[in-house]
C-alpha cells in the first residue's frame, strides 16, 4: 500500500489535533472493534465553525482524513461544513487506496455527527435524514461476516 504525499503529510503533521473543552458540538463515529474511531470537536460562533479539533484512533489514513476534514471545515459556515463529502476529502488528499476509502466516509460522518450534536444541544430543528450515520460506516458489517 502506498499513500500519497498529502496523506503522509497529514499523518505525520496532523492539523487540529486535540480537544476543545468548551466545544459547542462533539461527534464520535466508528468503533474500536473495526479499528477506527474519530472524534471531532467544533466551536460555533454565528453559525460559523470558528474552531475545530479532532482525536483519532486508527491507521494513517484515518488520521490523515480527520486532519484534512477539520482543515476543510475550519472557519466555514455550518451549512457549508455539512456539504463536505468523503469524495472531497479523498480528492484533497490526492487519493486513498481502495481499502481506505471508508476512512474518508468516517471523516464526513464525524463532521456531521459534531454538527448534529451542536443542533441537539441548542434545540435547533434539523432533518435527521441528512445525517444518516448510525456511528459506523458499514464496513464493520463486512468485518463481522
Amino acid at each position, binding site marked *: 500500500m502506498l499513500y500519497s504525499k498529502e496523506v503522509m503529510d497529514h499523518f*505525520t503533521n496532523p492539523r487540529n489535533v486535540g480537544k476543545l473543552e468548551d466545544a459547542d458540538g462533539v461527534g464520535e463515529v466508528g468503533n474500536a472493534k473495526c*479499528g477506527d474511531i474519530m472524534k471531532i470537536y467544533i466551536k460555533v460562533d454565528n453559525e460559523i465553525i470558528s474552531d475545530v479539533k479532532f482525536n483519532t484512533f486508527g491507521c494513517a489514513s484515518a488520521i490523515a482524513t480527520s486532519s484534512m476534514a477539520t482543515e476543510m471545515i475550519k472557519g466555514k459556515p455550518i451549512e457549508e461544513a455539512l456539504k463536505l463529502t468523503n469524495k472531497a476529502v479523498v480528492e484533497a488528499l490526492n487519493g486513498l487506496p481502495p*481499502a481506505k476509502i471508508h476512512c474518508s466516509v468516517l471523516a464526513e460522518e464525524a463532521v456531521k455527527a459534531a454538527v448534529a450534536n451542536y443542533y441537539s444541544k441548542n434545540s435547533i430543528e434539523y432533518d435527521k435524514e441528512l445525517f444518516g450515520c448510525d456511528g459506523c460506516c458499514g464496513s464493520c458489517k463486512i468485518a463481522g461476516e
Partner: protein
Amino acid sequence: MKLIYVDNAATTAMSGAVIGAMEKSMREDYGNPSSLHSMGQRSAERVRAARETIAKRLGCRSNEIYFTSGGTEADNWAIRSCAKNGEKRGKRHIISTKFEHHAVLHTLQALEKEGFEVTYIDVNENGIVKVGDVEKAIRGDTAFVTIMYANNEIGTIQPIAEIGRLCRENGVVFHTDAVQAVGHIDINVEKENIDMLSFSSHKFHGPKGIGGLYCRKGIILNNMIFGGAQERNKRAGTENVPQIIGTAAALDEACSGLEKNAAYVTALRDRLIDSILSSVPRSRLNGDRENRLPGNISFCFEGIEGESLLLMLDLKGICASSGSACTSGSLDPSHVLLALGLPHEIAHGSLRISLSENNTSQEVDFIAEILPQIVSKLREMSPVWEKIQIGEKEVNTYAIQ
C-alpha cells in the same frame, strides 16, 4: 537515515556466502541437471550435494527432500496429498490449529468445501497447543494432523516432538509447517516423529521463491506437477539450480551458527521486551515469554492502531510489522491474536519485531528509545486512550467477540 531491519520473520537478508554460491552457479555451472554432458552432470552433482546437505541438517535422507517454490507450495502439496490419500481409505477428518499460516488455513478451507471436516484446536492464551487437546481430537477417521512448528506472528514454539509421537502411536500422518523454525531452532524430523515438514529458504538468509518439503519414506506423496522426471517424478520442471544451491548454503550456515546466533538474538530480544514492557504502560507481550523463537517479539499497545505505529517507526528508519487489520487489507485484525483470546481493539494495536543475528545492541537500544515516544504520540491523539485514561473503558474486561 540508517535503516534498522527488524522484520526477519517476513524475510531475511541473503547471506554473502549464499549470494557467492548462487552467483557461481549462475555464471559457471548453468548446465541442466538432466543433460548428459559434463556441464549438465556437474549441475546434477551440485543439486545432489545440496539435497544431501539439507537432509543432513533436518535429520532425514536426501531422497526424502522435495524442492518447491517455497513454504506455501510445500504446505499446499503436503496437505492436499494427505487429504486425498486419507480419503481413499475413508478418512476425511483433519486436525489443525486456529493460528496456522494462511498457506495452511486457506488450503484446509478449500478442503472443507470439498467435504473434509477440520478440527481447529485452540491455542490457549500463551499461544501453545496442548498435546492433550490434539489427543482428544484424534478419531478413527482422522487422515492427518497439521500443526505449525513455530508461529509466524507471535513466535511460540509448539510441542512438536510430543505431537509427533502421539500421531505415530495413533497411525496418523503428521505434517508441520516449519517455515519460521528451520535454521533458527534445532530440528530433527526422525527424533521428533515428523512425517512431513515444510520450509522456506528466505526465512534463513537464503533466496526467495524456493523452499522444500520433507516427506518421510513410506508416506504417499501425490504428484504436484506432471512433466519430466525431476524431484523423483513428483514435481516436474527443470531444477532451480542456483536457488537450490543457495538454500543448501544458507541452511548449512544457519545451522552451523545456530546455537551461537540463538543465544545472541535471544539476549537482544529479552532486553527489548523488558525495556518496552517497563517503559510503556498498558503494553503486553503476545505469546509465551520463554517458549518462543529467539528473534520474535510481538507486542500489543492499548489505545493505538498498528498501521500508524508501523508507519511512524518506518519514518525513523525502523522496518517492522503488524498484525493490525489495516496492514492486511481486511477489517479484522490478525487471526493469530484473536486466537489468543485478545479483543479486537487490543489486537488492532499489535507490533511484531523480529530480530536476526545481523541486528546490534545499538539498534535495539534505538528502538527501545523511539518506540515509547511514538506510542505516546499516537495515544495523545487517540479517543480510545482518553477513555482508558479516565477509566470509562476497561479494555481488559471487554467481552471477547
